[in-house]
């Protein structure tokens, strides 16, 4: 009996471990991410937490993989600037060792084949930002909210502007042409996992404009702490592009007014001749009104815009994928133009590469160290001058148009008097050419071709494919396809645009 008591005690001792607490099967993340409940707890003690969410929306513009692939061409907003630049033919892939961009983009295959993942990348990226913005808008009371708190007004304004910005990029990249009646894109004003059918161009533009107009009001008293944030002027700049892309000449005065407002209030000045060959690598440049200050901690390396474009970064541009200026466009730059010096000329691999436009400040071939610390440019004040010139030329105000254009060109050419000889179509042609030259490699020319219903320049001899061809703004191959994954998983969308 005594022995049995011992046995039972022994068993009982071991059994005490049996009583696991309810906590045993509850685990929460303790690594690089946090769930909503965990945020709620810490936000009470640290209000700075809340600002992290709008920063998270912007982060999609520079993080890698936002297009939903692991590709080295998937690095946020600038990835699509580069896609667009290749499609306009102004950026030439002149040596291809690693194959990035080669078939899909530079041979314009993806734009005709909806199974190519590059289509998915564009779509996924901008709709990802739309969802992020929608989540934030919802927490601030929805897109018609009118917060009292200054900080919340600023945040709501930024979120609305980011949503509009993404929708506008989608209208440009996904619709062959501007047709108000055409059904082009699914429209989400709130975050939802359930797909919807296409809305018309007019409906999409209505939302874009109302978002931006609302943002401009909400951002009235917002003082941004760095240039990655959208302030009132950036929102106005986006709206100027949006209205210009409707091609409605009667609305061109609105474009002019917006450009004027940005020019007057942004505090920015057109980059000087010296600045345009200084590397385009710092957001502190007085000519930049929107951009991202990349730092060591950002952790960008090879997979980045610099990792594709800059031979002075640890990059494909150095390793064997040469991106150069189209030979014909280069030839069109006058010899005495400061921008001609942005490009290297010589025989071999580096010919016509932008070795003096975009470069890491160290200027060591292949980069001084792995991390990219050169910055991203999203918008420059020069865009507003040239867009204003374009709008005025369309309004028939050639004189003021020439003046606006000269605001930029006077910093590029010793003499801009030739402009006085230009009017009408010739002036518009010149404005488009100057857009191509001034913003080469900055993702702007694509939109100019679309809103001005132009064609690309004939591909120069330094392209690997389609040499000599021009591509019209409304050609199927000039615009991305709705990706097959959308068509398959969204029963309400069965057709391409």
């Amino acid at each position: 009996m005594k022995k049995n008591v011992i046995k039972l005690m022994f068993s009982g001792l071991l059994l005490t471990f049996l009583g696991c607490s309810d906590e045993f099967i509850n685990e929460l993340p303790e690594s690089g991410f946090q769930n909503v409940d965990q945020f709620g707890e810490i936000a009470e003690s640290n209000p700075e937490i809340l600002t992290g969410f709008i920063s998270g929306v912007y982060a999609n513009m520079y993080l890698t993989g936002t297009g939903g692939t692991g590709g080295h061409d998937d690095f946020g907003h600038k990835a699509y600037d580069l896609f667009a630049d290749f499609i306009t033919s102004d950026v030439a892939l002149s040596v291809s060792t690693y194959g990035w961009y080669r078939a899909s983009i530079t041979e314009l295959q993806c734009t005709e084949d909806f199974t190519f993942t590059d289509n998915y990348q564009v779509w996924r990226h901008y709709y990802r930002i739309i969802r992020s913005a929608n989540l934030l808008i919802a927490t601030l009371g929805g897109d018609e909210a009118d917060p009292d708190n200054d900080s919340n007004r600023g945040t709501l304004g930024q979120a609305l502007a980011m949503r509009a910005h993404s929708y506008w990029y989608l209208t440009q990249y996904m619709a062959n042409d501007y047709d108000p009646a055409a059904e082009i894109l699914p429209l989400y004003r709130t975050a939802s996992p359930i797909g919807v059918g296409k809305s018309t161009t007019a409906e999409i533009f209505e939302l874009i404009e109302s978002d931006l107009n609302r943002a401009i009001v909400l951002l009235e008293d917002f003082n941004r702490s760095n240039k990655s944030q959208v302030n009132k002027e950036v929102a106005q700049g986006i709206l100027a592009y949006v209205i210009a892309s409707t091609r409605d000449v009667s609305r061109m005065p609105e474009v002019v007014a917006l450009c004027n407002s940005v020019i007057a209030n942004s505090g920015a000045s057109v980059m000087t001749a010296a600045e345009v060959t200084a590397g385009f690598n710092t957001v502190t440049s007085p000519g930049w009104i929107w951009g991202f200050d990349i730092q060591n901690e950002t952790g960008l390396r090879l997979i980045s815009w610099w990792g594709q474009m800059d031979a002075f970064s640890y990059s494909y541009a150095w390793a064997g994928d040469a991106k150069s200026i189209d030979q014909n466009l280069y030839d069109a730059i006058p010899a005495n133009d400061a921008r001609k010096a942005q490009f290297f000329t010589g025989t071999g691999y580096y010919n016509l590469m932008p070795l003096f436009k975009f470069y890491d400040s160290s200027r060591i071939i292949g980069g001084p160290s792995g991390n990219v610390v050169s910055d991203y440019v999203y918008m420059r004040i020069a865009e507003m001058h040239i867009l204003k010139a374009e709008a005025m030329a369309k309004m028939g105000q050639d004189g003021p148009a020439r003046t606006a254009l000269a605001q930029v060109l006077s910093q590029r050419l010793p003499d801009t008097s030739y402009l006085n000889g230009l009017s009408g179509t010739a002036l518009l042609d010149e404005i488009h050419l100057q857009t191509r030259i001034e913003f080469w490699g900055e993702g702007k020319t694509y939109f100019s071709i679309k809103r001005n219903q132009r064609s690309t320049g004939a591909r120069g001899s330094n392209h690997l494919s389609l040499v000599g061809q021009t591509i019209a703004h409304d050609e199927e191959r000039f615009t991305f396809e709705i990706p097959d994954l959308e068509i398959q998983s969204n029963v309400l969308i069965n057709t391409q645009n």
Partner: protein
Amino acid sequence: MKLKLTWLLTLFMAFVMQFSFAQEKTVTGTVTTADDGLPLPGASVIVKNTSRGQQTDFDGKYSIQVNQGDVLVISYVGMQSTEVTVGASNTYDVALTFDNTLDEVVVVGYGTTTKKAFAGTATVVKAEDIETKNFSNVSQSLAGEAAGVTVINTSGQPGTTSTVRIRGFGSINGNRAPLYVIDGVPFSGSLNSINPADIKSTTILKDATATAIYGSRGANGVVLITTKGGSSSESYVELDLRTGINSQLIPRYDVISSPEESIGFVWEGLLGRGRATGVADPVAFANANLFTDSAVPVGYNMWNVADGGELIDPLTRSVRSGVTRRYTPQRYQDVAFNAAFRTEANLRMGGGNADSRYFVSFGFLDDKGYALNTGYKRYTTRINVNSNVKEWLTLGANLGYAYSQSQNNGQTVGSENVFEFADKMQPFFPVYLRDDNYQLVADPIFGGNQLDYGSASVGAGSPNPTITTRARPNANLLNPIGTALFDDVGTDRHELNGSFSGKVKITDKLAFETTFGAQYSNSITKSVSNPFYGTGRNDEGNINQNNTERLTTNFLQLLRYRNDFGDHSLEALVAHEGNKFESNFVSTFKTKVVNPEIDELNQYILQPQPTGGGRSARTLESYFGQINYDFNDTYYLTVSGRRDGSSKFARDKYETFYSIGAAWIISNENFMSDSFINFLKLKASYGTTGDEAGVAFYTGVDSFTIGAPDPDGGFVFTDNPAANPILTWETAVQYQAGIEFSLGTWLDGSVDYFIKDTENLFFTRQNPPSTGVATLTINEGVLRNNGLEFDFTGHIINKGDFKLDLSVNGALIDNEIQEMYISPQTGEQTVLDTRNSPYGYSVGSSIFDFYIREWAGVDPADGAPMWYEYYDDQNANGVLDTGEELNVGLTDYLATTTNDPNIQRTITKTYANATEKYVGKSSIPDVSGAFRLSAKYKNWNLSTQFTYQIGGYALDNQYGELMSDRFGAAGNNYHSDIRARWQQPGDITNVPALTDNAIVNGTSLSTRFLTKTDFLALNNILIGYTVPSKFLDKTGLDLINLYVSGDNLMLTSAREGFNPRTSESGATGRRLYAPLSTFTLGLKLKF
């Protein structure tokens, strides 16, 4: 109930009464199995010619009162009875030997049974079949050992753990890997920490009866590993020594190896581009462009010619006769691959007495791969002890420790990889740098000659600024030989795994058992790039270090009841188990090294990225029970149930799993007594099992990633749109029926048929990406795996000294999606999901059915590739008219069209217009399995194992890349099949013209590279000789065994270099470290 108690009490009294007529003395002892020295509970000990006797207890012990001179008869079902005459001693330990294999003890979930009695399907892989193979862990050794078990050998890197699949592919997006259990403890560590030489037996559990007791984690099968123990009958020392050679015996792809032949193809590619793009003089175009940066940079012109025109004869499109070389470049594979040594030594010691047993082992393995600086070195020790501390208390401890060093050089994911270079670098691009006079360049840093890094080797800012720059158009800046030699990638890992068990015998029938198991590992992975050459040069050297610590704890408490009532016997258990897995990591990247000889973080002075670190954990809690009943050793019934909870799920944490299984040994019935069938068992089972391993740790709550700070140093949180709060267990429902039989003495066999439906699938639903949520993991859909498994062993010859056995196993497995997930837009099942292209998922398809475009050959007129375009011929004129295009894949079209479709096909030369469709082929083979021939003649033994597979298809993507001119004329080397390319109008061939990719998409995804995965492989062969014991008498040795063995010696597949056993689908991928072939000479001593 009361009646039963009374009856039990009566039985008990009867025993007491019997004992009260006590005799002269009490004899005690332990009954064990001779095989392994383990105690044998339930054996009967009877005084001969009396009815007095008893059964041994849980520990195989008996205690009986006898007179001196009495004879004890010790017996157990299926074992040879032994008689012992009682003399002066009071202790008689007896070891029983098995009658035949049917009565071998089989380790199953939370207990043991015999092969005969088990109602489920458990395949025991014998230690000797594992020991003959030369692998660092048990996973590879399982290849071919059991029907329905597929082993995928993903890499030849020594120390790789293979992927194991049991009974098909149990999930779509969830886990398909089995659960491993080591000495009764679910295992989350590295299988490499278990030295195969320490393994006594490996049991593979397949059906629900076998696996349901592991409820939560049994859905994809269970592999039970039992390590060796001591022996109460003898003390022994065993020493195994092996030495051998690792090499690559299975050929790689047959690529072009002659620089002259290769440059001819490059030239022809340029010619083709000239023609395709309408250049006036294509020959002049090719001549002018051959030695340029877009084809072959001038610096790589290895011939004594000035240009393409001097090199190539345009008529033959090959190098003119009389052209001489400036130098002969070395080939990457010649430098990168060399046979290497493998050395292994294992020392095992065991012993003990009736109350305590011990086993101690030490192992050493040095396994070097054939690729430069790859290898795996490991030291293992194990101590297993087991003791009956008290008559009612047994304690055991199994403790293993392993320290390993893995070196994985030259295998960067990307272009910088020795295997990529070996296959894809043209033979005219040299391994070593040449200067402008075509001479080798001395390496002032590492000695020898400098390697060729393309443009990074030469020109401004390089180590050789005076040599003219050249951008190698294939993987410029990289040289994996340099990476393998001067950089270092490796992992040092300490791993401990232990189980500590106690058993309290509360009564003769009831015992309490508890096991605490823990697996701990600490690994440090370093990737170091040298500061002089290659990718680390710009950083002046860099190091990436990851420290990972993992701990799994598992605590089991179990009550076991066991009793016999006449012909009825019953065993029942109830238990609770808690399991916790935790992992911590810290990772750091630093640059600019002081002393590159020292791979430590403090030698690096810059830190471009912040250090990262974190912890994640998962817990499981389970309650379960089982009842095993048998009547007359003929009718068996097993019922089990288990309730599991997992921390991975937010709301529905718990699920219940259960099974029921029955077996009937027909051969025990009277009507079978005269049959030539000596043994025949029918069995059937039904049950459910679950899985939670297939989803991430925190699935249920919306979360945000903490990003790098914004420019003001502020917080950045990006949303992770992945949460699904209602996600819960994936469940497999499995039915099985099977037979096991023995015909005479010449054939043993078993056949099982099973249906396994995985429900509540972890399905990654493709969401409309426009919602911003691209995918969501949900529990929807049903996947069925059903199949037939057979396993036969024929004892062909068994005469005196000569024994010859042939065993064959195989599995015929079908896989079908029976239900797709529901589209939230329509509430109906989704028609098609191609997110896992080239496979399409839809109702009725398998998860490996190809949904791709169909290749239609090459146009004889211009050498362009062609595909099939399907269209809806509404006007039935046999021609594709405008408006009749499908614009989407065929399955999508048929699901959405409102037409009465009249689908026809035509040929297109525009890839985008070709139609994606199910092409009627699948990666899943019709049958796969193995056969083994084993022979014994006198002291010689021979064993050979072949594996085979018939009836599947896979995409041979690597062959596709070798047939591609995708990356420019000199972008990659070619397979020798490129010789069959189209060259001039009228050529009938399946290989398009070379055009430097001016004519595109020839190698884009289509049926072109769909290849049969049929194969026959010689997996293992062993010839051994055991020195006859008569020679050993005076040596003090009990055994000397010598053998030679070989692994992975031969493969016949559709194409040299195509090894369908290296991925689950059979598809080939880049940078494969092809599995090693190993020859070993071994010596086994026992004393």
